[in-house]
């Protein structure tokens, strides 16, 4: 059975997940299990919480390389695990950090790299959605191994307990000299909402929201759904909402069960970050706004009247 080496990504403690593993990690293990044997590599000491979680999602082997943060050193360790394991693919979550590691691992293994897969099929074949979903491209590595970054939400994570063998990898020395140092770290006020890229429901506002104060209504609707708040670049450029919440080509890629866009025209750069959402709902005053072309349900109307009415409707039904 071909094995798939999954990079188990840890989240900062500020994020709250007690085992410290991203949702995307669990999705990758689920995906790997569908294709062959899932094997994990993690930048952690082999502690029970981390190993336990990886075991719960079916990892047959767990390679631990200690708490190493420097990308070059992490890439060296992941590549070392790949040399031991000889998997047919290294799977890494698509995200700014994931992509940086993936690129470095591909250089070290001198192999192909495919990014932003929305699915992986036997082969392994990476399925990519190009130009905001206009094209579906299927690609493969031509060598023995390929690095694939997979978008969050490609599969739904499912537990399938296993008893992994745990291996320790010594991180290679010598990366300190060429390392960049974090000299200041200011945590952002921890939100009570789910993380944007992991939320089941995302409510986003755009330039149509009109002001920073207007975003209170977007937040209210997101909270009614226990969802996350997103924004278009139209809104983040105006500083109505923080840049970290921008969805799109130069922001986050999300694919929640429900994406509700209010006052967002739906430029291709915005759609690139949300078009793979299961259900898309749009509220916009302009019937010609391109967002309606991707919407499963659209209301042509003023968000300041439609959203309060929807909130009332939700209140009445629950």
């Amino acid at each position: 059975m071909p094995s798939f080496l999954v990079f188990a990504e840890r989240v900062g403690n500020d994020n709250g997940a007690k085992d410290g593993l991203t949702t995307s990690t669990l999705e990758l293990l689920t995906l790997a299990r569908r294709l062959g044997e899932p094997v994990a590599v993690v930048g952690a000491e082999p502690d029970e919480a981390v190993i336990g979680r990886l075991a719960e999602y079916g990892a047959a082997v767990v390679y631990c390389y200690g708490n190493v943060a420097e990308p070059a050193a992490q890439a060296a360790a992941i590549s070392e695990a790949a040399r031991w394991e000889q998997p047919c693919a290294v799977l890494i979550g698509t995200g700014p950090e994931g992509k940086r590691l993936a690129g470095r691992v591909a250089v070290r293994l001198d192999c192909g790299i495919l990014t932003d897969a929305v699915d992986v099929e036997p082969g392994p074949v990476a399925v990519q959605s190009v130009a905001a979903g206009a094209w579906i491209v299927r690609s493969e590595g031509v060598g023995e191994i390929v690095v694939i970054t997979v978008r969050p939400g490609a599969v739904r994570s499912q537990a399938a307990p296993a008893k992994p063998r745990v291996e320790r990898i010594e991180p290679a020395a010598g990366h300190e000299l060429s390392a960049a140092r974090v000299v200041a770290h200011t945590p952002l006020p921890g939100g009570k909402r789910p993380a944007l890229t992991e939320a089941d429901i995302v409510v986003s506002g755009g330039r149509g929201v009109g002001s920073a104060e207007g975003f209170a209504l977007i937040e209210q609707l997101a909270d009614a759904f226990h969802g996350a708040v997103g924004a278009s670049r139209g809104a983040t450029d105006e500083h109505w909402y923080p840049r970290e919440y921008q969805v799109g080509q130069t922001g986050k890629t999300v694919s929640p069960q429900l994406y509700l866009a209010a006052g967002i025209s739906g430029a291709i750069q915005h759609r690139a970050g949300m078009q793979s959402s299961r259900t898309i709902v749009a509220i916009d005053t302009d019937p010609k706004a391109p967002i309606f072309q991707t919407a499963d349900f659209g209301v042509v109307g003023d968000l300041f009247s439609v959203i309060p009415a929807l909130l009332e409707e939700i209140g009445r039904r629950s």
Partner: protein
Amino acid sequence: MKIICLIKSVPASAADTGFSADHTLARDSVDGQLSELDEYAVEQAVRLREAGVAEQVTYLTMGPSSATEALSKALAIGGDDAVHVLDDALHGSDALATSLVLAVALERCGFDLVLCGMGSTDAEMSVVPSMVAERLGLPELAFAGELGVVDGTVRITRHTDHAVEQIEAALPALVSVTDQIGEARYPTFRNIVAARRKPVQVWSLADLGIEPALVGSAGAATAVRAIGAGPARAAGTIIGDSEVAAAALADFLAGRKLLPQP
């Protein structure tokens, strides 16, 4: 200090983007333009040059002959000269090959600081900068929203999901910048004319000592197997605003089990 700014030429309009029979992006048939996300890196390089922090700004691109358009645009914004790696054997290069060619060309140019965009607007992979940094053993400061260089140390500010960070490294180093760092200026007519006199060197693979078999379609480590039209989303229900709009929307959400559970 010498800055090399990596810029990429991309198809001039998104609507033109298509695929050739060999499954590569059809880049040759359409006009090229400077990738918008690289304009931010160009602007930063030019500002450092104007502030006297950098003595030289050189642009480096690997691309087809139409990439001269992107180089001209960058040179019109500012900077001193450019290097164009141009070779028929490069057609179809993937990220692995692109990073190899850029790394070898960078070594040949010599540099203190490499500036890149956060991603190309056509390939959107955002991996080339890390791959170049890995090949050259450079510290990589990724996704800068602010950038400064003082006494041989580069410092950036970047926004992550959970924090705002300041990151620094001693030169030589590689920095990628986001679209938050500041719009590029419009080149003046005078600078557009002046840019025509700025030197552009053209290097072939032979000049760089790279085996053609390692790059292009021949050396690609990945291959496209199939391209199809994306799933057409079934046309949605679009309704006008009225007293019943919110109820209709709630019914739709309830039908898909998306209404919040009490």
